[in-house]
């Protein structure tokens, strides 16, 4: 049964999800109005193109509509879950654009793995890395830590790809990722104190 829009607006995200799972468009609309802006912004940050960001955001929300029951409240907030879906979709979009859509073949487990993006150029990486303005906690990181985190999270590059393009040892890349996340986490904790 559909709930009225006004009633849906009073519900928390976690309360909306069961309604979305039961195909309630009003609940879904409220969910989009709350998080659609962040989702589109994230998609645009990753793909760097408005039309593509629109496509990625729409696909991500449609997948939520069709699998609303998959949300597990024990594993985090609805917003984080939604944004992780958008991020994965956007990275998939980048990979498919580069001709790396995963081949699905049960007989070859390796085909199910994410393919290495060896064809992606450093120029492409740098474009993605500088495509959006860095704000918030990540903006306070030392440049070398912010760069590896951005290339991984927003660019979809593996640590070995990043090491190769920045000409750094892999251990250094991993270490910078950890230091960066630790610093962001520390700042968040201070903000809560």
């Amino acid at each position, binding site marked *: 049964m559909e709930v009225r829009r006004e009633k849906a607006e009073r519900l928390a995200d976690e309360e909306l999800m069961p309604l979305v799972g039961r195909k309630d468009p009003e609940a879904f609309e409220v969910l989009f109005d709350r998080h659609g802006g962040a989702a589109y912004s994230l998609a645009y940050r990753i793909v760097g193109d408005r039309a593509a960001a629109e496509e990625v955001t729409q696909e991500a929300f449609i997948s939520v509509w069709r699998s609303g029951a998959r949300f*597990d409240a024990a*594993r985090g907030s609805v917003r984080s879950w939604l944004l992780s879906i958008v991020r994965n979709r956007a990275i998939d979009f980048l990979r498919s654009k580069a001709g790396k859509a995963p081949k699905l073949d049960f007989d070859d487990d390796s085909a199910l793995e994410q393919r290495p993006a060896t064809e992606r150029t450093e120029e492409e990486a740098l474009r993605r890395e500088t495509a959006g303005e860095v704000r*918030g906690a990540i903006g306070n990181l030392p440049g070398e830590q912010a760069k590896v985190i951005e290339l991984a999270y927003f660019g979809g590059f593996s640590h070995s790809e990043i090491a190769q393009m920045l000409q750094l040892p892999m251990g250094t890349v991993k270490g910078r990722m950890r230091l960066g996340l630790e610093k962001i986490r520390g700042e968040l904790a201070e903000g809560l104190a």
Partner: protein
Amino acid sequence: MSGSDHNRWSEDLAPYMLGALEPDERAEFERHMQGCEHCQGEVRWFEPALNSLPESVERQKPPPRLRQALMAEVRADARPQTRPERRRAWSWFSRPAMAFAVLVLAVAVAAGYEIGKGGSDGGGTPSVISTSEHGIDVKMVREGNGGTLHLANVHQLPPGKVLEAWVRREGTVEPVPALLVPDRQGQAETTIADMNGVDTVMVTEEPQGGSEAPTSPAIVTMSVPQ
């Protein structure tokens, strides 16, 4: 495990959270994490930092047509509770004919129930296929056109991970809509509505919310006899 041995896993934790491990490294890390409370705790501690990354991007205003197109699709999907192709296939069927068909079906179901109570071993008897892989006991119960996939002895999943089932039909891999959610006893099950033409059933570990296509090697692969 000594502290120095564990440094290796600590080094991989941030790349893991950022999605920056190679697939084989990721699988190895996840296997380790299943039994490592220290790493599980670190992942939980780092999660707010990871969640802050998408919030750090410059805010863009989505075009109004995005909302309009999305809601148009959602509302069109919400009205009928069946898939569009299924609707088209049945659209020639008149309402009286449908009512008659429902009545016939109800009688058939009732008759089948009575036969079932009598212990008949007729054509409606479920068939069972079972196997064991990676310590997980797998059982597929086929009944009619559908089936139920049962898993037992499933280990605790890493944070942010779910199990997703897939079927291969005529060479095409399709996700099973309902995710597998293990209970405290390590048991999970999901229903496969249409088993026609399915030759393989697979289970993979996927990111929270599931995936549209498998992103990790199968932890269970079961061939389905035709």
